[in-house]
């Protein structure tokens, strides 16, 4: 505690008020910041939008493991769910997500049908351990994506910046006919 000008009086040493205040000021908090616990608290907040999810995924910063509040381990998870497109169409989805080194959450989806996602939409997902989340996706700008042909001949659309190496890793459901 700083010394205060109002207490330079030598008699202050015996003032019960100063004695009490000194006792109150004495304790120091020595515990280290519990960043992980704080992250879990953030994760457990309800009704976050896509933007916030991205923030939370970034906050996870490489140390977040399965079992987080809400049941979703944002570092890496698989999921099943339903995508509700802005135009009213819905489709069942399954996929996985992983946080990349640059902090983005990279998500791979397969669906059991074809719908127009260019207007964005929402996706209710459930992870294998029972975790649930709602993702809100922004409208997709098709000019930011490109069409590629997979080794088996099927065509899919991927972000424009995807490298050949990333494209090779894409896992597409054998039931899907491509675009």
């Amino acid at each position: 505690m700083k010394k205060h000008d109002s207490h330079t009086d030598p008699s202050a040493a015996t003032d019960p008020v100063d004695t009490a205040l000194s006792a109150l000021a004495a304790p120091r908090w020595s515990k280290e910041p519990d960043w992980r616990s704080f992250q879990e608290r953030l994760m457990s907040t309800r009704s976050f939008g896509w933007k916030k999810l991205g923030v939370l995924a970034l906050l996870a910063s490489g140390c977040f493991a399965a079992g987080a509040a809400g049941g979703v381990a944002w570092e890496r998870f698989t999921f099943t769910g339903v995508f509700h497109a802005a135009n009213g169409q819905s489709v069942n989805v399954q996929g996985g997500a992983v946080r990349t080194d640059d902090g983005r959450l990279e998500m791979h989806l397969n669906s059991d049908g074809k719908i127009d996602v260019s207007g964005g939409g929402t996706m209710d997902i459930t992870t294998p351990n029972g975790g649930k989340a709602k993702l809100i996706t922004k409208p997709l700008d098709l000019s930011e994506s490109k069409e590629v042909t997979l080794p088996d001949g099927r065509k899919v659309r991927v972000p424009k910046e995807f490298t050949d190496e990333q494209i090779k890793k894409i896992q597409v459901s054998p039931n899907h006919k491509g675009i």
Partner: protein
Amino acid sequence: MDPAAASLNATPEPTTANASHQTPQAFGDFYREHYQAIAGLIYRRTGDIHVTEDLTADAFLAAYKSMDDYRGQVPPIVWLRRIANNRVNRWVRREIGLRGILRRLPLISAFVPPEANSTQPRSAALAALLRLPIDQQEVLSAHYLEGLSLDEVALMLSISPAAAKSRLARARDALRRELAHQSPESRP
């Protein structure tokens, strides 16, 4: 739907004068930088380690949620202290109440250094402090427990330095009365 790999980047864009705290990475640094100060502030006023952990997380969560509203009018630590202070005030008013506080006081002994005779003075002082009106608690806490100057106290409480000084004087008088009231000599 295309089975495309959707690469989703949702980093929020800085929008205020103090944009550095609005990026996730910066908020993590902000949390680590100010955690001790905020937890210490809360602990010194509540005397309960579990309450401190809860309220500290609440305070940072509230700060995180209101980042968009923070316009840099006051330094970040002042803004954060205000939030923490409000959390403690709310705790004192709503969740514990005087009876609850008094019941909890024995717990303080578990969280202070085990030196002989250190527990009683602090317990008695905290009991007296928590019996004061909230505005007097916070001014005493800010000035004497956190070591803020009168100008800093005024900034944190959004009052003038003169008002802070007079509130502090009233609070000291009130604390003196409370301490006298609970001292053995004053009991019949």
